């Protein structure tokens, strides 16, 4: 029934030679014609970008192979389904002096570097868990530091091994692999990429969404952004004075390192929090940087709770109410309180993590403290607008007939479960679902599927919101899909991003199914007659196929080729197109004399140079 297109596409190339991929043609041969329209689009994309050979980041996946361990890595990478362009270069070996000189000349800088990248803790983590093959995952903006991190980390590991003489001296060298440019969001742990090199753990650098992993343990290095402590405390206490509600402080993970100091400074600077219980300030717990996979998706929340280690216990003193967790931050509220009773104070950038918080706690008053500019931002109308916009998209999705499920992650725990759940949901709503795997979506890629009325993007919480203005069809999240496709469920303002919450979401009891659905897009009642038909078909399942074919073969009016929402399935959509392919039985059977076609490149054929 479902035309499932599972296309896994990876490109590996050597890190420092992106401009010299010679055997470019071989990419094309990867895609058999039978793959349908997705193959061409990807191929096309490659070619268009190929001019500059600055490949679309989503397709790049660089492995910097350290010289100590290159043979085993090469062996593991060998797979006939993937293209590999192997050019041996050893960045570190080429100019070893560079790093050495720098570190010698500025010792403090190196210390900063080590602490910023948590080298010591990382090494401890690897060492204690006895990992032997470790993937280091860098986002694009930190890639420049990757070689240094590797060399420093290696040095540290080596020294650890030497100091630790209790074990047998001849344990193998630990393999470190740099992994960059993940196929999906760089905030998620790229488990698929890591498993290509048989890694048994992933060290993730930079901004993270803290989505739980499926198979591999992960260690997160958040980085350490600087913060003006005094100024931050100043604005915080000022805000606390004006606010009538207690304050919950949330922060970007890059500021996690200084939260303890902020808390201490706040306590020292004033005594107001003791005098007025209303202006209490609570802090979310600092998450533990470790994460171990949990197979049981139902217990995703528990998993997060048990990992909170290095947070201060005093904040959750006596707290036994509801526990919250978002993007790695966890906190507990007092008994009988809900988030509406708090004001939120966010320290950090206006990034996807913040957008996530705003959407999730849209009923709370939220201010943001921008640590780089050292100022408070209270105007969040743009963020609020997003919520309304998402509401519109839900209404739009209700009218959709064909839904394309975009697989936007292959790592976040529970993604398969969600895809299946969504598939069931869509089918139950009498709509058609197609599953598409295409890495990071962009408008051109999705426009290759004009038959889809709406796309459902299954991905980690922080990459889930795609602004859909450029897209031909809207892109919605699984939570929104749950609202849209469950008849009777209502948009209450509650908003959930993570899979874990979604899986645990209670199934809405579908109330009155029979009333025609009101479509706010069309401004009137429409009825989804599939609901009625389903009942009939169940009775005589043996005839189901015959019925389906009968419908597929209906003769349609040809005038309106592409009406959004007209077709009920991909096949029907194609049947309605005006162009059906080459017309073989042409009445003109006399042979035609050949003509000379165009010459030149597509960017400007020879016969039209002077035309425009």
């Amino acid at each position, binding site marked *: 029934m479902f035309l499932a297109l599972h296309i896994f596409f990876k490109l590996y190339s050597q890190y420092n030679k992106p401009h010299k991929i010679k055997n470019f043609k071989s990419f094309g041969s990867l895609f058999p014609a039978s793959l349908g329209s997705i193959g061409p689009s990807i191929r096309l994309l490659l070619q268009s970008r190929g001019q500059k050979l600055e490949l679309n980041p989503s397709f790049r996946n660089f492995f910097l192979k350290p010289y100590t361990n290159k043979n085993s890595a090469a062996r593991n990478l060998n797979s006939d389904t993937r293209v590999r362009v192997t050019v041996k270069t050893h960045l570190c070996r080429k100019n070893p002096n560079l790093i050495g000189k720098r570190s010698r000349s500025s010792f403090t800088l190196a210390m900063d570097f080590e602490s910023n990248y948590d080298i010591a803790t990382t090494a401890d983590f690897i060492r204690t868990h006895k990992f032997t093959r470790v993937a280091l995952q860098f986002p694009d903006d930190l890639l420049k530091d990757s070689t240094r991190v590797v060399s420093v980390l290696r040095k540290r590991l080596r020294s650890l091994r030497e100091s630790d003489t209790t074990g047998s001296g001849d344990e193998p060298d630990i393999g470190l692999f740099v992994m960059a440019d993940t196929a999906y969001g760089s905030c998620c742990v790229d488990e698929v990429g890591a498993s290509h090199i048989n890694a048994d753990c992933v060290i993730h650098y930079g901004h993270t969404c803290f989505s739980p992993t499926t198979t591999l343990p992960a260690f997160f290095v958040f980085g350490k952004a600087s913060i003006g402590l005094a100024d931050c405390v100043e604005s915080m206490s000022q805000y606390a004075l004006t606010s009538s509600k207690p304050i919950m402080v949330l922060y970007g993970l890059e500021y996690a390192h200084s939260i303890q100091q902020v808390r201490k400074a706040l306590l020292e600077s004033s005594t107001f929090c003791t005098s007025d219980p209303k202006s209490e300030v609570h802090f979310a717990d600092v998450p533990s940087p470790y994460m171990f996979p949990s197979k049981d998706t139902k217990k995703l929340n528990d998993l997060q709770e048990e990992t909170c280690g290095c947070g201060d216990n005093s904040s959750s003193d006596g707290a036994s109410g509801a526990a919250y967790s978002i993007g790695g931050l966890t906190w507990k509220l007092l008994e009988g309180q809900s988030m509406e009773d708090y004001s939120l104070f966010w320290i950090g950038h206006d990034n996807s993590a913040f957008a996530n918080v705003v959407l999730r706690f849209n009923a709370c008053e939220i201010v943001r403290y921008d640590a780089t500019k050292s100022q408070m931002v209270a105007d969040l109308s743009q963020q609020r607008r997003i919520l309304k916009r998402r509401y519109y998209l839900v209404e739009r999705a209700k009218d959709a007939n064909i839904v394309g499920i975009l697989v936007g992650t292959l790592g976040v725990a529970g993604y398969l479960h969600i895809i299946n759940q969504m598939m069931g949901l869509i089918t139950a709503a009498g709509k058609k679902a197609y599953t598409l795997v295409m890495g990071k979506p962009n408008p051109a890629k999705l426009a290759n599927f004009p038959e889809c009325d709406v796309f459902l993007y299954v991905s980690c919480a922080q990459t889930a919101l795609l602004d859909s203005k450029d897209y031909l069809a809207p892109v919605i999240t699984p939570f929104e899909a749950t609202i849209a496709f469950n008849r009777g469920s209502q948009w209450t303002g509650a908003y959930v991003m993570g899979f874990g919450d979604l899986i645990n979401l209670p199934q809405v009891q579908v109330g009155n199914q*029979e009333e025609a659905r009101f479509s706010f897009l069309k401004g009137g009642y429409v009825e989804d007659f599939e609901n009625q038909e389903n009942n009939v078909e169940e009775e005589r399942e043996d005839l189901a196929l015959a019925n389906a074919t009968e419908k597929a073969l209906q003769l349609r009016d040809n005038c309106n080729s592409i009406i959004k929402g007209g077709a009920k399935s991909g096949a029907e959509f194609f049947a309605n197109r005006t162009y059906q392919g080459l017309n073989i039985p042409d009445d003109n059977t006399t042979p035609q004399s050949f003509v000379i076609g165009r010459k030149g490149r597509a960017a400007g054929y020879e016969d039209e140079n002077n035309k425009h």
Partner: protein
Amino acid sequence: MVKFTADELRRIMDYKHNIRNMSVIAHVDHGKSTLTDSLVAAAGIIAQEVAGDVRMTDTRADEAERGITIKSTGISLYYEMTDDSLKSFKGERNGNEYLINLIDSPGHVDFSSEVTAALRITDGALVVVDCVEGVCVQTETVLRQALGERIRPVLTVNKMDRCFLELQVDGEEAYQTFSRVIENANVIMATYEDPLLGDVQVYPEKGTVAFSAGLHGWAFTLTNFAKMYASKFGVDETKMMERLWGENFFDPATKKWTTKNTGSATCKRGFVQFCYEPIKQVINTCMNDQKDKLWPMLTKLGITMKSEEKDLMGKPLMKRVMQTWLPASTALLEMMIFHLPSPSTAQRYRVENLYEGPLDDQYATAIRNCDPEGPLMLYVSKMIPASDKGRFFAFGRVFSGKVSTGLKVRIMGPNFVPGEKKDLYVKSVQRTVIWMGKRQETVEDVPCGNTVAMVGLDQFITKNATLTNEKEVDAHPIRAMKFSVSPVVRVAVQCKVASDLPKLVEGLKRLAKSDPMVVCTIEESGEHIVAGAGELHLEICLKDLQDDFMGGAEIIKSDPVVSFRETVLERSCRTVMSKSPNKHNRLYMEARPLEDGLAEAIDDGKIGPRDDPKNRSKILSEEYGWDKDLAKKIWCFGPETTGPNMVVDMCKGVQYLNEIKDSVVAGFQWASKEGALSEENMRAICFEVCDVVLHTDAIHRGGGQIIPTARRVFYASQLTAKPRLLEPVYMVEIQAPEQALGGIYSVLNQKRGHVFEEMQRPGTPLYNIKAYLPVIESFGFSSQLRAATSGQAFPQCVFDHWDMMSSDPLEAGSQAATLVTDIRKRKGLKEQMTPLSEFEDKL
């Protein structure tokens, strides 16, 4: 003191010749509801004394408060005629009892959808015209609608009391006024004449015109007076009637009839002599309390007054006397029974208008014959909110068969297509109800020819539907109604408390159901929009929404929002080109405005995507000067595949062009829905595909490459063709006395309106002013106008056309540019328009 019971009513329902279904239609404030009161009083539902003050059919609190009718209200009346009065009746009848299903409709133009719904389920119409104001714009509109539905009209010249009390005009002058009113109405009726309906014009001498004073509850037709004088003069009644109207003069001195005024002082027109003067005399005597003169006069007229009534003074006395002498109900009901068709007569010629299917199948036959034994055919024309909040009665008319409590019916919605299951439900009717004033009475069943309300179907009927028996699977639905107004005024609503959103959503659904005209939609930005026909309509809708459908939860409404259209002024200054994301495909395009009138023709469905290409090219080449071959190369219309924009293929000999057609069309639907200026719909733009360069490999020119590119090139060509905004414009008709004209002009000037017609009503001090007024300026217009003219002018606004704003939206600071910025801000877009360079590529 109700004179009849539901059982009695039910009994007459079976006599299809003794039923009259009629609606009361008129311009606002011409006295429909007041007149209806007199009829209701005659049926004994309200006391005769208060008739004219109660406005029985204005059932809603806000209707009573504002003094206007908002919803059309149905009411069933039982009326027994005397043998004597029926002796001249030629048609078929079954006893002397008559059932009149009467629907009072609103006169304000904002609610004309209610009139449409009322007309569909009636066969006759009582057109009420104010004798002083005459035929107004809304009179004309509703008359046109009525005749379009093949509704036979009768006329009543209302507010006669104004002639006698307020204006004190003399007989001849009054006659001229009345005859002009009737003539004006006849002119309209003659325009929409229909051979099947026959002569629909009205003639006082034939008894199809009544003269009434709704407020005082009296009315007469010439028949009344003819009967009175026929015996006296010893002439035939019909002959007498003819003499009472037109160029017939009587000189009491010579006792001779002439066809010309002889010039002698005593020679007067028949009407004046025998109808107008006696009434004037009675009224004057009553008002002057000359009781000594009055009693003999009344005895002469054969009127007996009750003793307690004799103590009345002045106006109440006059009212009572006139009601006894010339009861409105007798005159009007007689006129209806004699001159309006029974369902069985009317359905004979209406079936063609009503039934969508073949006119020779059993359903058409059953409708034609009004066959109670035939298959059920019932049209639900509106949903009436029940006292139980959120539930509705389905109100409609049985055209054939019977509908009964518990009957299983097939509900065919407006989107139903015979043979498919779309928009089709099979459900049972919980209860059948008839309306008796403010009360509803449950009856066992209702046979054809009657109006009925049904309980238990509201979940399956959205706005209107056709009902038939469960088994009748091959029945076609009854044609959907066409509305004469369109919802152009919109407000965004949101709830004060965010968690009330589900309530709001539910309320909007109910609102959409209760009113056939209101449209509830959602904007791209996520705001809920309620659109109505006018300011007043919207105000009523929002009140209903908040009080009835949301249980009083508070809502915030935005200022009224008007939607604009984007168009172009000239042909693109150059051919623009856009490249696909892979740079391998190039589309070249130009935009130009559509010929004058072509966009309207597309709106009206004269030209559309479903036409036969040959016909289309004929119309285009003959009426709009298109090249014949070019007319065959129209790729599509848009937005929504039917809108007033098109894409035309001007390419010569390009390869693969047919392959990308679908993608370009998809891009066009997208782009024409959200124009480049402010994401409003485009209008009247023709896009010409001048050339395309495509990659030879099919996979490099798929939808992913072409659709976004097509959208960009559409925008680029729009921006290079002097883009302009179109704003909606109302046609305003104002009627006011001369001294108010100055105020009207100054308010119109302030509001960017301009007068295009000013006409004095012959014989009155009133002026008729027609003007164009931008919809965006119309908010608060009527209150300002009232203030400026001390309440003497009352405007009626109807959407008329789209008008181009002359200022250039691309020029910073111009009026159009400010508007564009405002719209973009409201929609949550970047305030700056996307520059042309984003859409156009260089080679």
